[in-house]
């Protein structure tokens, strides 16, 4: 299923990726290519290891088989120093925002600069205010993370993720639990930042409609395999029953409504064993 993109277009290439957690196979020989400069969405039901995939790309987890290459570097073979050098060029937006709760908004966004650069304070101030302006929260610079709404926290985390001008940004479920307005704001931000800053974005999500509006390319994963890929339009018209069920949110289909269990009647008759 690979080979959709030309070699020079690919920033992240995943080959034959296999990963186990607690004896359960999360990924089973997954192949994926993330094209440069585009927004790529990775969608799938909850619990299919989408976040795990981001952690594998970021080198926080090691694959049990296969490899992940970012910009030609095989992530699992890097030493700690090289891995950290690579991560400096990746931004990641966690589902919770992962803001440092003991620092205010300004200091949270300035954090990577203070850790990795020796820029003078005036320069740090300008850079932080520029990024905060980009996410519309320049006025919130003195607030503490506990005073922010969920959507604002994610925008601050986004400003922090792009403060070092990374090559790519990974978004972990950016839309989950957002009201329609902040959802719209985040959709617009991801799209605008990607094209304005020439980033490569990977959006992990199960919000089909929002993600489909900004994604250039979509991978659908389920039970450890890529079961559909293409542009959102292609997937929308897909004849695969699984892809149809997911894209249109049908309750029953190839993904059963019931969690695997012994036959219902038999299960009820076993009551005296309890």
């Amino acid at each position: 299923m690979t080979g959709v993109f030309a070699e020079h277009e690919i920033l992240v290439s995943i080959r034959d990726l296999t990963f186990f957690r607690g004896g359960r196979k999360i990924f089973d020989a997954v192949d994926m290519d993330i094209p440069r400069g585009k927004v790529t969405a990775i969608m799938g039901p909850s619990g299919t290891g989408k976040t795990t995939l981001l952690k594998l790309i970021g080198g926080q987890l090691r694959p049990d088989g296969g490899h992940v290459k970012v910009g030609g570097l095989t992530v699992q073979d890097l030493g700690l120093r090289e891995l950290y050098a690579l991560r400096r060029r990746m931004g990641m937006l966690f589902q919770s925002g992962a803001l440092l709760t003991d620092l205010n908004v300004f200091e949270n966004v300035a954090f990577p600069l203070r850790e990795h650069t020796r820029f003078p304070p005036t320069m740090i101030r300008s850079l932080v205010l520029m990024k905060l302006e980009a996410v519309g929260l320049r006025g919130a610079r003195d607030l503490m993370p506990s005073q922010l709404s969920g959507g604002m926290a994610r925008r601050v985390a986004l400003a922090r993720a792009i403060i070092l001008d990374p090559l790519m940004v990974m978004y972990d479920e950016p839309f989950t639990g957002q009201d329609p307005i902040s959802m719209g704001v985040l959709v617009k931000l991801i799209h605008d930042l990607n094209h304005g800053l020439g980033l490569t974005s990977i959006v992990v999500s199960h919000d089909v409609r929002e993600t489909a509006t900004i994604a250039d390319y979509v991978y659908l994963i389920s039970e450890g395999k890529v079961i559909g890929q293409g542009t959102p339009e292609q997937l929308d018209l897909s004849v695969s029953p699984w892809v149809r069920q997911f894209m249109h949110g049908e309750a029953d289909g190839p993904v059963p409504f019931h969690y695997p269990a012994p036959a219902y009647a038999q299960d009820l008759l076993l009551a005296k064993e309890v």
Partner: protein
Amino acid sequence: MLKSIQSLGAVALDSMRKLGRANLFILHVLTGFPDIFLRFRLLIAQVYSVGVLSILIVGVSGLFVGMVLSLQGYYVLSDFGAEQTLGVMVAASLVRELGPVVTALLFAGRAGSALTAEIGIMKATEQLSGMEMMAVDPLRRIVSPRFFAGIISMPLLAALFSMVGVMGGYFVGVGLLGVDEGSFWSQMRAKIDFYDDIVNGVIKSVVFGAVVTWVAVFEGYDAMPTSEGVSRATTRSVVYSALAVLGWDFVLTALMFGEN
């Protein structure tokens, strides 16, 4: 039967693994020692929250322990007509034993539990993971300053405890029970040796500081990233560090004072 032996083995393996993780963890933190000078401000902030904020509880406890020591000591010593040595008894017990040990136990409850909960919650809210993704090593940025702050604070707190304790002993012994003031202090000065008593006590408190903070930061870092996991880790942190302090106290006492 076989099952219970199996589960016993599993528990043993688990604890061995955990011990291994704890050792690798502390090794990593210790290799980050030079970084402390680059992040001096973080260290100072931690000495404040771990050490300075523990001063009140340590001081008050020291006062009462000293007062009780004096009361109890007087009761025994006066039987032999040896009330004049009350100062020696109070000071020696405090400097050698109670200062380091009780301070370490209080420190585990006051500062250790807070460290575990703080780091555990940072883990549960993905702050540590987020830091890793920002190419910042959480062991150096978060754990290392807290660990060294613990080592710095503990001996100072133990010294404070002993000092306030001696004052408490003085108030009760001299003020309340009428022990002669001159002999209280002069006997103490004559009998308490700088190296044998004070330096050994300081060594103890440094070791206890390292043990308590190590357990605390490791339990936080190793906690299950859920609210239940953090609460369990906090409990474990206090229990394990208290036990470790008492165990190490025996070992150190045997090494330091075992010969005489």
